[in-house]
């Protein structure tokens, strides 16, 4: 068997998942092929390394905690799962703060602009503007082509 075929089977060989005949073939190949043997040794090294990961032990009261949770009403049992909700709070809090800051800034700037002369209209101009804006729903609002047409049509040569 070729090295490439053997190398594809090394993982299953390590896990003892090959058929007995294939297992034997790989074993014999490894005895005679240094490259494949090194590759298998590397797999084994990683496997051993993973074995170094420590095991944890359950608390002595593990069963009692399970039994207690079973007896608790479902809502109470699920409540601890909602412990992460407070961690969501920063988002609404930040949005609220931004909203309040925005409103305050807007009000402040609005007052400044309203008090400045640049934006103050004279009373008459203001009245005219307001009056014109109220005529926006007229059949021929002032300043439009329709108004020009009406004027031309009603012109009597005077």
């Amino acid at each position, binding site marked *: 068997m070729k090295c490439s075929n053997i190398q594809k089977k090394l993982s299953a060989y390590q896990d003892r998942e090959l058929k007995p005949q294939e297992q034997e073939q790989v074993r014999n190949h490894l005895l005679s092929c240094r490259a494949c043997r090194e590759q298998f040794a590397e797999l084994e090294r990683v496997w051993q390394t993973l074995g170094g990961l420590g095991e944890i032990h359950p608390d002595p009261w593990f069963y009692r905690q399970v039994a207690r*949770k079973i007896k608790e009403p479902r809502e109470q049992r699920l409540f601890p799962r909602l412990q992460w909700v407070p961690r969501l709070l920063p988002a609404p809090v930040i949005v609220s703060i931004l909203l309040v800051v925005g409103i305050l800034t807007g009000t402040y700037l609005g007052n400044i602009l309203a008090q400045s002369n640049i934006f103050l209209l004279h009373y008459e101009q203001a009245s005219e503007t307001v009056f014109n804006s109220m005529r926006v729903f007229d059949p021929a609002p002032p300043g439009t082509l329709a108004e020009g047409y009406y004027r031309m049509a009603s012109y009597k040569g005077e």
Partner: protein
Amino acid sequence: MVDQKIPSEELMARIAEGDDDAFELLVNRHQTSVLNLVYRFIGDRTQAKDLAQEVFIRVWQAVKTYKPEAKFTTWLYRITANLCLNELKSARRRKWFSFSRSDEDGGHAFEETLTDSAPSSEDLLLEKERNRQISDALQSLPENQRMALVLKRYDDLSYQEIGQIIGCSVSAVESLLVRAKRTLQEKLKNFEK
């Protein structure tokens, strides 16, 4: 107290009849394996304890409908695997919604692992560092590869059992393990004992 030699399938039948001692025996018998499966998969000790307890609550809830079609541990690990995968999905959602730092969600994996002897602080530090490296390598694997690898390496299950647990074929399990081992070879290249 019921006999220690009673098969787990038989214990399930007794639990269905209302035998609380049988449930206690079942929990005591499988708690370490379930806890460590969750721990190695999730990488967080506290979360692993909560999830392991949740596994046994699911067992209790399913006791009436349980049918011993497969090995009890296969059924138990299937519940465990599903819970772990769901937990990871929820954790991702929580992480997305909240501003929590990544290390709050398992970044300190395996750091609390204790040994039975009383090693020096230097040994403890080394042990901690080794565990962290292995944990990081494990956590870098995609979920299915990680679950297959943990079940193979630490529980020595067959490909067929692993396939039943994670819901895929034997050849798919083989492929998952080949890829997982290849990734770990790369990640643990510079690992020193």
